[in-house]
């Protein structure tokens, strides 16, 4: 059960659903590679392709947002799309920073680091949680709701 819903989590879910609707499938995957992040995909099912396979191998990423610094890192195209999507969760003032406030710049830098860390963690480990959940469901169907007791697997 969920007790600690954050605005960011809600936004991520919403963005994911919008991506699915845009791509016309809930199980999107690049038809040429294994990329499955909706933010990095374009086209409509079944003709879905990722930005890297479209030729955008490396793109320049404005690390703190275009309005906050000129610092640009070259990163893979798909990661750039995923990161840009995460910037959608930032407050508009921080992202746009029209007056150039140094505090908002600092906030943008922190948010960028957090986004990067999030991106690294999720893109590296994202598949693990759904796989465990699927396995749990499978075992529950096969062995009953307390399957770990049935097979003598101690959870402590």
């Amino acid at each position, binding site marked *: *059960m*969920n*007790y600690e*819903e954050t605005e960011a989590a*809600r936004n991520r*879910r*919403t*963005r994911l*659903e*919008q*991506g*699915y*609707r*845009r791509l*016309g*499938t*809930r199980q999107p995957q690049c038809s040429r590679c294994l990329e499955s992040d909706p933010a990095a995909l374009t086209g*409509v*099912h079944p003709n879905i392709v990722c930005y890297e396979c479209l030729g955008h191998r490396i793109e320049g990423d404005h690390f703190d947002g275009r309005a906050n610094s000129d610092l640009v890192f070259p990163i893979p195209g798909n990661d750039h799309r995923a990161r840009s999507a995460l910037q959608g969760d930032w407050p508009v003032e921080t992202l746009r920073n029209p007056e150039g406030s140094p505090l908002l710049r600092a906030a943008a830098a922190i948010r960028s680091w957090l986004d990067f860390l999030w991106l690294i963690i999720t893109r590296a480990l994202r598949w693990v949680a759904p796989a465990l959940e699927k396995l749990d469901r499978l075992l529950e169907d096969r062995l009953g709701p307390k399957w770990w007791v049935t097979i003598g697997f101690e959870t402590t």
Partner: protein
Amino acid sequence: MVGHDRIRDNVIPEEREIFVRGWVVSPRLRRNRDRDRLRDLGPSEWSVVFDCETTTDSSQRLRVGSYHVRHDGRLWETGYFYDPDALTASEILTLRNHALGAGAKVMTRLEFVDTVLLHYGWELSGLVIGFNLRFDFSRIATRHTKSRTRLTSMRGAFSFTVTDDPTKPTIQVQPAGAKSAFYRFAAPARRSAEQRNRDAGGDVATSPGYFVDVATLAKALTSKAWRLGDLAAELDTDTRKLAVDDFGAAITPQFLDYAMTDCQVTWECFEALQNRYRGYGLTKTPLHQVFSEASIGKAHLRQMGLQGWRHTDQAFPDWLIAVTLETYYGGRTETRIRRTATPGVLVDFASQYPTSYALQDMWRYQIAATVRWEDEDAASVQSLIDSIDLDEVLEPEMWGDELDRLVLVEPTGNLLVTRAAFGADLTRNVAVANRIGGAPQWYTLADVIAAKIEGGTAPRILRSIRLHPGPPQNHLRLIEVAGSGKIIDPYEDDFVSRLVELRRTIGTDWHQGIDQEAAEQLGHLLKITVNAVSYGTAIEQNVNEYANPVQVAIGRTDGTTYKTPPQHRKETPGAWFHPLIATLVAAGGRLLLAAAMRLVHDLGGEYTFCDTDSLFIVATQHGGNIPCAGTPTGTIKALSWEQVPEVTERFNQLNPFDTGGSILEIEDENLDPDDGQQREVWCWSIASKRYALYTLDADGRPVVLGDRRSEHGLGHLLGPPGWITEWWTHLLGIELGFDHPEPGWFDQPAIGRLTVSSHHELAAFKTHNKDRPYTSQVRPFGFLLITQPDPFDTSSGGPRSLVAPYESDPDRRLSQQWLDRGSDDGASWTIRTDRPDEHIDGSILVASYRDYFTSYRAHPESKAAGANGERAGLRTRGLLHPRTIRAKGLSRIGKEANRLSENPELVLDKTDRAIDYPEPPVCEHCGTQLVGRQRQWCSDKCRKRHQREAR
């Protein structure tokens, strides 16, 4: 004896306007390629279940609600929401403390809408689940308007604003029957498509949402309306509904448990119904698209890869659809022997419409991509009709080879099915009438043959159109019936026949070992599928309400069209609309009934009533004469019980199914439940659809037979439990001469319950709602009470019907304020049923159950004539005859749009009646259609010529 004095000589025909169904010329259906490209993903893994608990006063405003959020079926979050203005501070404290202990969230109504309902339901495309969802949506709304969407199916729907955020959608609710509705999240107002697309990340449409009303779903899958508690018991859910004594009392932990349990029970019922539906294997139709039994039928057609006929046949002309609809009538219901006790035997055509469908091999038309037609020689059809006799009608070959014809006839004194306003009021009824002269009219060949075998004469055939099914649609798929392993090939098998046969043999030669409950469920699925496919879906026409009146283009049978005066309602054909199937199947049903009547008459017998597929044949154990007014001898002949099978067995050869036996069956009501022996059953029939079957006890007193008593004209009233049987027992008691005591509730006002499901019904509360906050107003889908003032008050200009907010206590109904349903001037009254001779300011005399009873027991059978040839009035008893009619003119109408039409007593204004499609006025001189401000003549020249000629 052909006709058996059905056609009476020396009766001067009455001139009556004849009504036929009109064809609203609709644009050809095209595939929406844009919509195809953005294909529907279906609901995501999220679902929101919610339920509202309301106050018990007239506003029925939200007090507290409960919800579950589930992900892939697993509980993700639970919580309560409340209206801060409806709860006291201590109640809110109770709520917070209870929620804390239960691990549930607490939020206001607006927070619930923004962070739960619209987040999971709209943004995440989750499934929104509830029990009577339309009521719940109305409770959480902050205002409503009349939808002006371009989407045809949602025109005139209620559009509920549920949040203050202008970037969030409204919820549109379009009532689709007494218990169901279509739901949709509508794009937020004032947001351009480009803006929406950008927000959504590109080329993506706003999600319309996915909704499942468990009450609607349960009714669709079981053909029965349920309360949540009863449904949970039926589905044997783990959690059951709790009981609460007083809904109006202060919020308590027990009440909050009750509310949360409702949510859980709703979810468990949903899961059980979902599992049942999954077992049917109808993968092409998701659960949220099941709204009625007809949806199940359509789901089977879709599963086979069939497309609706109007999608595939672009060449079938509009004038021929107009001809086809002109021949369409529903079931035949009539009383032949009125207000006279008659013993007899009830017989019934088993699966009448599917039988008619199978006999005429309608499956060929169902799967055909096109329907071809040709004019044929009218003289040869005339000779076919003139030579046909009952024996040929009882041959299956005639049904398969001859009946797919539509004929233009000139009535010459024939018993033809007729739709007219037979009575003093404007209600149109369908009856078999003796038609003489008048304008030619289109009929199915089956109806003309029925006229011939029943009345002995056939009308003159002026034109005949023969129809043929074209080649079948491509790429149809095999279908497995309800996951049973039985495969049906749409190219080889008649789908309807196979289903009927499977249904009759469940648990015998197939599906052996199936348990009783599963067999019942499967049998029920097959039944609703068969009925929907063979008839229901083919005549589906949806009525849309328009905020601004529109002119409707109506097709004439000569190929021209005309536009009606502007009106607020218009029909749109359903996706599986196939009027040819509908009219041929229904006409086939009437032909079967006419054949049975003729067989009874040939034996010298009579019947008391017929009701679409059933007939009550006058019969006693040994036969003989029984008293009956309206005949020269004062008696009619009753057949003997042994003679009745002579009638039913003649239908053996018409059985199109491989299960054998007659399609006309003797009903179980005729058998004693204790020993299975045939018993004497009696019938009392007042008018069509108003009859009761009964037996006599040892003292000769009537005992009403179970549910074999009509509820027609009564079902809308809120009497005490079991009151309809008590009503009929009392009616029969006094009609048969017993000193039967009046029921104790006869003095109470006769009050019905009405759900506010249209803008018109809500308009009566305009003044009541004025200056009240929205949450305290009478709102859409709230419950109302309705009653009818005494006829004297009505005739003196008083209100014709009164409505009041729902009140369950009969005593308090007398003291509450009642409003005029037809007016929004705000005048209100209390009601009374006593002191009829007094005038009391602020009080109005309304009809009591006794008043209703008095008019009900003598309800005229306007569509028949008594022995004197006059319309069967209040005092007419005994044998009735068809009315003799000369058509004065032909008018086109649509389907009856409102459920109240079934209760003529409450049909009080124009929105309750069938839609009229009147011809536009024409110039009195040259006949040119008038336009603009023209009233009598199209030009000054015509006016002058007309006046000159008149001089």
